[in-house]
């Protein structure tokens, strides 16, 4: 009989012929695309090959003033006066247009941010349109969300979003703000502005009244101008804990409402009675989804002693089957690191982990020469005292410890300044109830990980943030109840 063959998957790249990208993107203010007053632009590159994709306007204080003034005018004159059911229609329209152009958005998201097309196609873009659909439905039903109370909009919301899920985070921010009657100035992250600018085109196409949504691109300074603007009534921020702390100080005493969705260092706990193969898959999803650029990533793994050898051995084998490379290839599991800066940070933590005495294991996958890449990495022989166990790395790096008892693992899981998410894997229901009750984290998944739904609130304890997004809890961040 025939011998064993070596069967490799041929490249299966998603086409890019169908997308439309401009050479230069302006600011989106008052329903129009306007050049920045300073005339300054910055490049946005494809992190998988370092090629420039487009130039994007850099908004300064005067542009932010313009955007906030437009938002305030639209709030006073149009949006807050509109019948809620009419508001809902606009949001439904945005959701539908986004759904229709899902393929184009997926490709652009992958080009601009480096994430695999499998994820932008199956997760980011469908979830983004789902958020608009879900919140469109709430627009004229707020009295049911807050029975016996009247939900009044807050005014102008300043929204600052991160680079890890660019369009999805834009939808998490925009959809509830619009549904509750607020107007918005949104600032996308400087490394991933393109899908937000494409969304601006959809917003224009949906004929949303001018000024209801304004999008200003730029870096930290642009965000700072927005946070400190006196006519902004609410700040919604997703990003680092460091910036979150700055925002809290800046808005203190200003009367601005705020929600902050910050860092995490989630404990993912595998008990010895878990379905091991599925748990291994869960570990992979928890830490390597989106190259580990996930605030709720399961970056601390705790494995019960009796199955530790089996789990780690299976995890290593599974890591070998992960395909790392061209993010546009439909078979790619792990794409490019989002930026040079982030890659530097990840590498410094990996170096630190080894210096601290951790045992490192990395997939043997070849990495492309151009662009920013990091192999999937795990550390064993680490403890709660290691910095790679304590600090958020925001990359494909997992720190593994073992434990013996339920109480021990709960104590270790809670021994963190963060409290955003967590995971528990066991075949025993009662253990799930105990662990999920005792761990202080905003969301804990049982026998699964990284599952999201617009109806499910998402937010953290401790340094992981203030307030929630999604569901009724998310709506409450955009209303004053009277």
């Amino acid at each position, binding site marked *: *009989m*025939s*011998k*064993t*063959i*070596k*069967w*490799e*998957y*041929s*490249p*299966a790249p998603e086409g890019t012929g169908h997308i439309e990208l401009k050479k230069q993107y302006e600011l989106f203010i008052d329903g129009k695309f306007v050049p920045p007053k300073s005339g300054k632009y910055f490049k946005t590159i494809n992190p998988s090959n370092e090629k420039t994709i487009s130039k994007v306007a850099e908004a300064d204080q005067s542009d932010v003033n313009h955007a906030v003034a437009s938002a305030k005018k639209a709030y006073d004159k149009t949006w807050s006066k509109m019948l809620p059911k009419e508001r809902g229609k606009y949001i439904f329209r945005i959701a539908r247009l986004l759904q229709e152009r899902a393929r184009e958005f997926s490709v652009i998201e992958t080009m601009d941010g480096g994430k695999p097309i*499998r994820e932008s196609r*199956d997760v980011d873009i469908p979830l983004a349109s789902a958020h608009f659909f879900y919140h469109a439905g709430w627009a004229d039903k707020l009295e049911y969300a807050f029975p016996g109370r009247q939900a009044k909009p807050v005014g102008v919301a300043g929204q600052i979003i991160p680079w890890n899920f660019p369009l999805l985070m834009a939808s998490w921010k925009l959809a509830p703000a619009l549904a509750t009657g607020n107007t918005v100035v949104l600032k996308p992250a400087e490394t991933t502005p393109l899908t937000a600018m494409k969304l601006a085109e959809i917003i224009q196409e949906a004929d949303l009244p001018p000024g209801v949504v304004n999008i200003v691109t730029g870096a930290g300074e642009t965000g700072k101008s927005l946070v400190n603007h006196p006519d902004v009534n609410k700040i919604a921020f997703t990003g680092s804990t460091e910036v979150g702390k700055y925002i809290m100080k800046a808005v203190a005493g200003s009367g601005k409402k705020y929600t902050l969705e910050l860092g995490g260092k989630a404990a993912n706990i595998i008990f010895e*009675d*878990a*379905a*091991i*193969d*599925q*748990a291994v*898959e*869960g570990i992979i999803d928890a830490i390597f989804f989106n190259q580990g650029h996930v605030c709720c990533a399961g970056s601390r793994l705790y494995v019960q002693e009796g199955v530790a050898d089996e789990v780690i*051995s299976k995890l290593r084998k599974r890591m070998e*089957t992960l395909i790392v490379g061209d993010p546009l290839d*439909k*078979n790619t599991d792990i794409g490019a690191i989002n930026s040079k800066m982030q890659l530097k940070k990840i590498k410094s933590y990996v170096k630190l982990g080894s210096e601290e005495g951790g045992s490192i294991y990395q997939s043997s996958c070849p990495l492309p020469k151009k662009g920013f890449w990091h192999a999937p990495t795990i550390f064993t022989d680490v403890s709660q005292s290691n910095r790679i166990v304590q600090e958020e790395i925001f990359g494909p790096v997992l720190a593994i410890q073992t434990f013996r008892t339920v109480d021990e693992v709960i104590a270790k899981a809670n021994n963190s300044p963060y409290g955003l998410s967590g995971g528990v894997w066991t*075949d025993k229901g009662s253990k799930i109830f105990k662990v999920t009750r005792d761990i202080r984290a905003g969301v804990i998944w049982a*026998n*699964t990980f990284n599952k999201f739904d617009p109806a499910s609130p998402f937010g953290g304890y401790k340094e992981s943030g203030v307030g929630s997004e999604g569901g009724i809890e998310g709506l409450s961040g955009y209303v004053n109840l009277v």
Partner: protein
Amino acid sequence: MSSTFATPIDQIGVKERVSRLFSRSIKKESKVQALHLALSMIDLTTLEGKDSPGKVTQLCYKASHLHDSFPGLPNVAAICVYPTMVPVAKKALKGTGINLASVATAFPSGMADLQAKLDEVTSVVDAGADEVDMVISRGKFLRGEYQYVSDEIAKVKEACGNAHLKVILETGELATLDNVRLASDIAMEAGADFIKTSTGKVSPAATPPVVLTMLEAIRDFQAKTGKKIGMKPAGGISTAKQAIQYLVMIKETLGDDWLSPNLFRFGASSLANDILMQILKQSTGNYQSKDYFSID
């Protein structure tokens, strides 16, 4: 041999893994390679009460003449028939190098006493079967009589002599993936050379979650004992696309070693023609009518 130490399986997790594996995009050269490989893994099967010597002879001819107008195609791995057809098939397959498999042990229900089953196995092996496809006693398994199931497999294995033993779990009757995993473990420990999903007579037959669960059992068994056990999904696999999806599943669960008819088979009757149609499409760029492929 008790369920206390059974490996738990999370059904939702298995389904998610399956859909991720099945989302692999297999194109161009890798597709052509996969189609040829899948063809060489087929156990071309006819298991009907109305089977005639003529039909079996025709099937045996087709096994080594899949599409003679297109050179370079492999033969299928084996022909699979009922015990009474073994002598006919043996004669027809002479000199082809194609294996002859016979179902046995009161296929498909397995509702016979042990001695009758062993006699049947001995008779098909004596008549020249290279491979024996047995069924497990599902009634005993579901009652928790795992030792009985195990002993029965071990005795059948003994009766097989040099013939390869495929153990059919009939997963459609086992109800849960936990049971599928346990039955796989029992069969491998008792001496199975292959484990096989189904008889094709019970619905559902081979489903992707069942196949993945069995492949993971095989992988764990190899890690524990060093032995490589084969896998045969059977029933319900009729398209080239499904076959390629299963090849992806094998590659990423067990590795390239299992990408061989020695360790993986498809039990199927109509799969071969769909694969042939796809191979010709890859070569010519056009789909041909079904009438261009023989129905034997």
